[in-house]
Every structure is written in C-alpha cells, then in structure tokens.
C-alpha cells in the first residue's frame, strides 16, 4: 500500500514560486493568435454538422438522407446506424456499460433532446447545415421520464431497456457509529434540499479537427479536450484504429470548468468521418449543441438530510440521502459522489456519516464534470444544515462553526469516510474573512437598516476544497469492480539544450485558462534558477506522449510540480556527474547554486547548466561511460498519496488528500418585492496551501466566485415535463455579466501540504465551491425576520419572492 512520504520543506527561500509574475502564455492570446481548435485550417478540410433529436425519448424508425446527400457541396451524411458500423460504443466508465450503451450518434432510439442522430459533412459549415435541414427522421415518440423521483418507480418508462431499471446505482455507506451519534444527540435537524443542474458553459465549445492518412493508418485529431491520456486506447477502440495509430493533439481551450474533461464525443465523430472520407474534418459544437448535447451537465440532486447536534452546538453525525439525476447516460459512474465523500464532514469534527446515494437515469443530457465535480453540492448541503442547527439552537452561525472546526493540531485528520485532510487552519481562515469583511460593522449596519425596513444579510460559511483525485474514486463503489485502476499520473519532460535553454513538454491539454504554462515555467525556473519567461512550454500529442490525466479536480499544479521536481532531479543527477567528471571532483563535493554546480568550499570552480549541457551533447568520449549524450529527463508522477478502500467499504481509503479550505462572507441586500439581490460587500479568503502565482490564483478565486454566483442565482438547464430543454440559448441560460458580479475582496492563507512539492494544493475550483453556500446563508440571514430558508438553487428572484410570500402566509401576514 503506497503511502507518500512527507515532503521536506526546502530550506532556501523560493525565488519564483510565490511570485505574481505576468503570464508567459499571454502574448498570443492578447494578439488574437491563441491557436484554438477552430483556428486550425488544413488543406482539403471539410466541415461537419450534427443533426440533433427534437424529442426527449423516441424510437428512430427511419432516417432518410437522400435529399441531404444530393445537395451540392455535401460529401457524406452518416446516420447513427451507419456510425455503429464505423465505430464501437463510446468509452464508458460507468456501471454496466454493456447495459446502457452510449454511442456517438443514436441508433435505435434517442434518449434526450439534443442527442445526435446523424452528421453531415460538406465543403462548408453553411452547406452542412443546409443539408442537415433536408434529413428526414421518422421518430416514434415514447413517453419521456423527466422527474428523477418518478423515474425510480418500476412502472416508469426505461431509458435503457437492457438495464431493467432507471436506477443505475444505489448504495448506502455507513462510516463511523451513526446509530450511536444520532441516539445520543440532543437535537436532530432535518431538511429537504434541491440543487438543480447547471454546467461549465465555457465561451469556447468543444471542437475537433480530425485528419486520417490512409497510407499510414494514422488518425490525428486536434482537440481542445485531452485528458486521461492513458485511457485513450479505449477511444482508439471506439474508432477502430490501433491504439498506436491514434494521436490526439491538444489545442488551448477557451475555458472548460470541467466540461472539457474527457469530452471525447466530438473527437470521435470527427475521427470517424475523417477515417471514412480520407479528408480532414472539422466539427465544432455550436452553442445549442453544447447546451443540449455536451455530456457535461452538472449535479442534479435531491437531498434529505439529518444532522445530529448536541445542545452546546457540537455536531455529532450527518445522514445524507441523495437522489442524483444523471440524465440518459452515466459515463463517470457516481464519481461525483466520490468527490462528496472526500469532504463529507466539511471542516468539522463530525464523527459519523451515513451516505445513501441513488443514481437515476432520465431523458436528459448526461452529467459530466462541473467545477467541483459534486463536492460543491455537498458543501452547500452541509452548510445549510449547520445553519439550520444554529438557527434552531439560537446560536450564532460563526460560533457554531468555531466550536466544531478541526483544530490545527489535529492534522493530518482522517474523516469518517477514510479520506484525509492533509493540513489546515480553518478558524484562521474564518477569522481573516470576518476581519476583511468588517463583520461587526455590518452586523451593526444590519440592525440599523432593518429598522428602516431593509433586508440586509450576511453569510458566513466555511467549506473544503479537495484537490487531486485518485483513481480509486471511480471504482470503490463496487465490491467487485471491473478494474481496480490505481494509476492517476501527470508527466513532464524537461529538456536542456546545448545553450542551456529549457523546454518543458506537457502531455495533456493542461491549458484550460488555468495558467498552466506560467505555473510550469515558474516551477522550472525555481528548479534551475532561470527566468520563467525563458522557459519554453510545449504540449505533446498523445501518440508520443507520456501518461497524463490533465487538469480536473484541481490537480494540475500539484501533479505537474511533482513531475517537474522528479524530472529536474534526474537532470541534476546527470548534470552533477558530468560536472564532477569535467571538474575532476567527486560529484558529492558539488552543490547546486546560481544555476549551475560548484565545488563546495571553492565556489569559483563552477560550471553553469549551459556549459554542462554543451559537454553532454557534444563530448561523449569526455563523459563517464554510463552517461548518454544529451540532457533530458522525464518523470511520470503518480498520485503521491492513495490508499486502498477496505473490502467492506466502511473505509474508502485516502483518495483526495490535499484539502484546502475557504470562508466566504457576502453582505447582500434583498429587494423583497422582486427577490433581486444586490451586494454591499463580498469577501473570499482561501487557503490552498503554497501559492505558485498568487495573482493567478486570485484570478481563479474571483472567477470561481462569479461562476458560483451564476450557480447560486442565475444558471440552470431547465427541462419541462416532456423533457424539452427550455434553455437552448444564452438568452435563457444566464451567465453573469460584470454587472451581476461584485468586487470580491480576496484574502489568502497558506497552510502548506506536508505531502506535495512546495506544499501546493489545488485551488482552481474553490471559488465556485463556496459561493452557493455563502449566498444561501446570506439570503436566509437577510430574510430571517420572515423566517425564510433557502432550500433550492438557483435561488432566482422569483423563487426568493415565493419563499417570502410563503413565509408571510405561514405567519398570517401579507
């Protein structure tokens, strides 16, 4: 059972890690030369457009493509049935993928509005859409199952007949002595909560340009999604090409927020078409494609919750009963609940957890990844219950949290589910947030403004942001998993050229906007004492690539830091030997300083990295025998701290160990007539361990907060009773503009992880993981005189207004 060593803190001061340098990747974006996937043009390239189902659930009786094929400029029209000859089903990490078969285009029936049924390839996208209009599909509509509670009924229409049920997975986990904690509690608070689905919705959709060379059998696909490269052999299997003839080449992504994490369907369709036609094919999702058919809708949960509490506010145990509406497919299984279980007690010393989960299938787009990957929902649920307990006990929400925080001397702290929180100082974070928020002042202001009849609210929440998932969270759901995958790598190759110039090669689509180039440049600069802007960061295609999981679960910086440290260590080992040989000293008598090796005690006897490199490239006969020409090293860095679950699953092991924490304090005003919210102040204090580029992290915190405001107040994929998607444009799916987002006052705390290089933890998802809980608390607080409680998100103005009316009706007032 591999357990990581703690990583010793470096003795010297860091020069580049911790500096808010301007980003190395910006010039191309600033000048319109970003190189996004739609910028790629290949000679002879064709354009594809997917025909999508207008029905939520229907058999496909007949697809008539005759008129479409005959349109001038059209090169091919491929139906789902034809695609099923050309391709195998999509790779699927869910339970029973043989019983709920997911294909790139629907064959016998469609299972959600927007599901693709055919694809046109033409000389231009315009012509492809013209031809698409001419395809006639004979559908036999079937009753749609839309409500997840109704979907569980045995008489409900089945999304997948072969599965025999719409419940794709259910299990109850018990961690710790739940029975005792609930029996001994002075009070059990209960609530029913609803979190509705929203999604990443980056401004750039998923796209691919595929190119097949029949002479070599090589299928090259340029794509803005390249993650889990070690699983790409499955995509090759889908495309019926040998795994060593598939090359996915990453392009910078115009945002992802999870939705480009293993977003392979567009690449599969483009690849299939390129292989069939022997010409390059470009397929870019348009916005309607992405809203309805992206395979990455977020969590869609119904909770029944119980929290066992003592009179003095001590939290004893928590029970989750959650129904999650996964849509028509379940590609990642219940991995999003793994994220929940990674931090299912929040920052508190809650001793026991019962977690009952039911994954239900309905006629909607399937879930995928959405910034937080399910843990942000659990954060919200936990904080809602803690606030409820505080209200029922008449305790201040700040006080109840203080009483229950895990203390700084208790780390590493193992939570009931088995995961570990590596380090933290939660009270410190909250104190900083309250101070930055001028909390006492706003409580006084609240009093004063309440007397004027205004509804001011202050939210105070403290939530975890786990980072760096292990592979186990995708299979510990089953007592007998199909594959107990334990690899979760990230890789880097560092190459020093004869002039000392350094190139860092990355192997996944690391760039989603998360400053991957800059972070890598800073880490490399730290290792080799060079200017970060001199480091060349390049991205390799998968075919000659090392295994790389990519960003997601806020894992990239931690993992690439480990990989860079590993590769740099190998380079320095080699360089040391060469330097020792050239300087004619024992390599152990050398020390690394000032960008080179020097003799301890005789610092004037030194060689720079460039001098060493030149030696290594040109003068083989002057090197020790075992030294090969060149100065390059790779490191495949695997997850540094994973432990296996127990057989009975009462302990899931360590699977998400680098856990940050944050406290958000919004001060809002609610307009009781409209339910509209305006901001008086917004403070966010985050602790994600050591920061590599503080300004960069701050930008992601503010962006994540804006994203969280969208989740909390504006965004939802709305389906009606017939499964029609009502949010099919950006006039209905509402992303906050600059006027809907306040200025965010950001504070930082750095409690390093003992287990990672430099003590870094992941911080990219944190903002969104906090804001829904924070705004819900602020809404409750603002409307406390009315007894309103926010139990559903998004808390749109109309919902808030309805809660006010219901509260007034309960109180008998108008």
């Amino acid at each position: 059972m591999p357990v990581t060593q703690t990583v010793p803190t470096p003795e010297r001061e860091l020069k580049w890690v911790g500096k808010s340098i301007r980003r190395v990747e910006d010039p191309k974006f600033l000048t319109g030369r970003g190189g996004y996937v739609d910028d790629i043009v290949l000679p002879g390239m064709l354009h594809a457009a997917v025909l999508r189902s207008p029905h939520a659930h229907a058999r496909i009786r007949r697809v008539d493509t005759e008129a479409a094929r005959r349109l001038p400029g059209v090169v091919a029209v491929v139906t789902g049935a034809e695609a099923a000859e050309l391709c195998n089903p999509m790779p699927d990490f869910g339970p029973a993928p043989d019983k709920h078969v997911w294909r790139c285009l629907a064959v016998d029936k469609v299972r959600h509005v927007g599901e693709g049924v055919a694809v046109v390839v033409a000389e231009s996208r315009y012509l492809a859409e013209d031809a698409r209009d001419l395809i006639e599909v004979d559908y036999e509509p079937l009753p749609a199952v839309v409500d997840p509670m109704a979907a569980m009924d045995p008489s409900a229409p089945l999304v997948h007949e072969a599965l025999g049920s719409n419940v794709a997975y259910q299990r109850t986990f018990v961690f710790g002595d739940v029975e005792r904690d609930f029996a001994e509690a002075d009070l059990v608070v209960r609530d029913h909560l609803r979190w509705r689905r929203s999604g990443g919705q980056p401004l750039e959709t998923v796209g691919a340009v595929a190119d097949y060379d029949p002479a070599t059998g090589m299928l090259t696909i340029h794509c803005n999604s390249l993650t889990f490269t070690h699983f790409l052999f499955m995509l090759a299997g889908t495309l019926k090409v040998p795994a060593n003839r598939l090359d996915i080449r990453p392009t910078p992504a115009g945002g992802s927020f999870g939705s480009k994490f293993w977003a392979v369907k567009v690449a599969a369709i483009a690849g299939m078409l390129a292989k069939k036609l022997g010409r390059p094919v470009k397929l870019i999702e348009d916005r309607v494609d992405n809203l309805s058919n992206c395979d990455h809708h977020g969590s869609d949960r119904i909770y029944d919750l119980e929290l066992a509490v003592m009179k003095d506010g001590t939290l004893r145990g928590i029970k989750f009963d959650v129904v999650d509406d996964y849509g028509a497919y379940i590609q990642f299984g219940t991995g999003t609940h793994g994220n929940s279980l990674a931090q299912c007690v929040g920052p508190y010393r809650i001793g026991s957890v019962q977690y009952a989960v039911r994954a239900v299938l309905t006629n909607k787009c399937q879930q995928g990844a959405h910034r937080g990957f399910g843990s942000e929902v659990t954060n919200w649920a936990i904080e809602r219950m803690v606030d409820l307990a505080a209200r029922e006990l008449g305790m201040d929400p700040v006080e109840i949290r203080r009483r229950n925080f895990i203390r700084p001397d208790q780390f590493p702290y193992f939570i009931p589910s088995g995961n570990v929180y590596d380090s933290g100082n939660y009270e410190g974070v909250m104190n900083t947030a309250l101070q930055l928020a001028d909390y006492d002042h706003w409580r006084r202001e609240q009093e004063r403004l309440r007397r004027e009849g205004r509804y001011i609210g202050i939210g105070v929440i403290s939530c975890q942001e786990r980072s760096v998932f292990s592979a186990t969270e995708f299979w510990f759901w089953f007592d007998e998993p199909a594959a107990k995958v334990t690899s979760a790598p990230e890789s880097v190759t560092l190459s020093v050229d004869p002039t000392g110039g350094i190139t860092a090669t990355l192997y996944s689509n690391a760039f989603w906007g998360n400053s991957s180039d800059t972070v890598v440049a800073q880490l490399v600069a730290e290792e080799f004492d060079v200017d970060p802007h001199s480091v060349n960061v390049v991205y390799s295609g998968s075919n000659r690539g090392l295994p790389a999981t990519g960003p997601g679960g806020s894992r990239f910086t931690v993992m690439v830091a480990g990989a860079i440290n590993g590769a740099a260590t190998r380079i320095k080992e080699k360089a040391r030997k060469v330097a020792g040989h050239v300087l004619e000293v024992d390599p152990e008598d050398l020390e690394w300083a000032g960008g080179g090796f020097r003799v301890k005690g005789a610092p004037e006897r030194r060689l720079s990295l460039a001098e060493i490199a030149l030696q290594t490239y040109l003068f083989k006969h002057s090197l020790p025998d075992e030294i090969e020409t060149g100065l390059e090293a790779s490191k495949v860095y695997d997850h540094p701290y994973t432990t296996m679950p127990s057989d009975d699953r009462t302990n899931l092991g360590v699977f998400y160990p680098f856990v940050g924490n944050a406290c958000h304090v919004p001060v809002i005003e609610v307009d009781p007539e409209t339910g509209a919210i305006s901001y008086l102040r917004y403070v966010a204090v985050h602790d994600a361990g050591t920061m590599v580029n503080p300004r960069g992290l701050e930008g992601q915190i503010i962006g994540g907060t804006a994203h969280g405001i969208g989740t909390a107040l504006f965004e939802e994929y709305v389906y009606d009773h017939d499964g029609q998607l009502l949010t099919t444009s950006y006039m209905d799916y509402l992303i906050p503009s600059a006027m809907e987002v306040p200025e965010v006052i950001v504070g930082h705390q750095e409690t390093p992880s003992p287990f990672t290089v430099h003590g870094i933890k992941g911080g990219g998802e944190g903002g969104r993981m906090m804001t829904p809980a924070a705004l819900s608390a602020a809404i409750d607080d603002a409307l406390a005189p009315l007894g309103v409680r926010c139990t559903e998100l998004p808390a749109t103005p109309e919902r808030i207004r309805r809660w006010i009316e219901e509260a007034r009706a309960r109180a008998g007032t108008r």
Partner: protein
Amino acid sequence: MKPPPFVYHAPSTIAEATALLHEAGEEGRVLAGGQSLIPLMNFRLARPGHLVDVTTVRALDYIRADDGQLRIGAAARQSAVERDQTAAARTPLLVEALHLVGHEPIRHRGTVVGSLAHADPSAEIPAVALAMGAELTAVGPRGERRIPASDFFTGPFSTALETGELLTEVSFPTWPPGTGHAFLEFARRHGDFAVAGAAALVHLEGEVVDRVAIALCGVAGTPVRATEAESRLLGERPTPAAIEAAAEAATSDLAPASDIHGSSAYRRQVARTYVRRALTLAVERARGGSR
C-alpha cells in the same frame, strides 16, 4: 449556427426598397440593424428568401425635431438617438429606455424603428412609443399611411404592417415642459429583456396630475397602455396611496404569459412594483426633483 440562403438587396431609395419588398411578397423581410433578425436566422427560426436592407437608404438616416415632434428615420441607430442632444431634450423617456436596450454594441447596430417593427412584447421601445402616443409612417403598395402606436402592435412579434410595407419613420410627440418621465424595468441581468418594465410620463398642474401616460412591457403579447390607471390619476394629487392604487389598476387585470424567467403571477407582481416605482420617479422629476 449559420443562416439559410437568401437574396440580399441594398436599395438606395425608399421607392426602390418598397418595390423590392413588393416583389418579394411573403418571402421579403426588412433588414435594419439585424440584431433581432439575424440571430433568428442563425437559429434558422426565420428563413426569409429576401432581405431588403433599409439602412442603405441614406435618406432614412435622420433624427430631427420639427413642430413638437421628434422624427426618427428607419435607418437611425439606437445609439445615435441615445446620444442625440435633441432627443435628450425632447424625448428623455425614450433616451432613458434606450439605456436599457441590450448593450451598447447592440445599440450601435439596432434601429429604433426596427425595434418597433420587430414588436417583441418584452422590448422597451414599443412601450415608450405607446406611452408617448407615437405615430409610425409606413410606405407600401397603397402609398403612405400613418399608424398610431396604439393601433400598431397586434400581437407577439406582430404588427399592423402589411406585406410589402416598409416603416420609414416614427415620430414622438414632445410632452410639455415640466413633464416628469421614468422608464424602469426589472430584468434578470443588466441589458436583458424586461421581466416587466414600466414607462411613465406625468405632468402636474400645481399639485395635481393634468396629464399622465403609463405603458408596460413584458406583461402581455404586446406593450400595454394602462388607461384605467391613468384615468385614476388624472385630476388627482399623486400621493403614494394614489400611485399605489394606480399601480394596482395598471396590473390587476394582466395575465402575462409564463416562461422560465417569470411566471404569470410573478410578472404581474413585478409589474405592479415597477409601475409604482416609475410613477414615483416621474412625479419626483415633475416636481423638479432628480433628473
């Protein structure tokens, strides 16, 4: 999301434009700013066979004041009217409403007349036209005719214009000096269509309202003129109670359509709030208060 094929025409005169529209018949649509039409075409929800560009008729690009009217030609852009000094002086209600129409890049292309012809029930400009008693000029096979705003909007996205007719101008009558105006709306985000919006014009004779107009958007299939509420306020002092009663009268009979941005009941209730707020602000301005 690319538009389907069509034939584009760039006439230079009104006569040319109307002839083209006449020839195109049911397949013909006028293209002004395109800020509403082209998105619909990109979604392929609109598929006109012919687009007749009215903005290439230079003679229609004007904003001018004469004899108590502000006349705006069909090619005049919303942002040009928004910045126009004469409009600011003569039709401040229109200018205030324009600030809420989408965002500036949309207003750089969109036209005032185009917004009227498009007749989106949630749009601001039609409500202003109704409140101010504007008049539209249409030119077509039957020649030229004037259509009062109160007759112009016939349903969601539907107007009294006949096939082959082109709107060439809208004229807004100037209200007397001392009129207080307000256009306020509730939208999900800054720049979005109104969930409910209210236009109010109030003129006082001493303490008493001697002229008032209230119109709403987002509450029905067309903009709505709240005549019942207006008659309640006429001749009365605009006290908070009177204003509240007017807001109630303006909205109690409304049955707005429900959609994901607002149920019928919610829209009605927001409309009532905004009629009250708009009237309150208009009265304050009429009394010489905030500008």
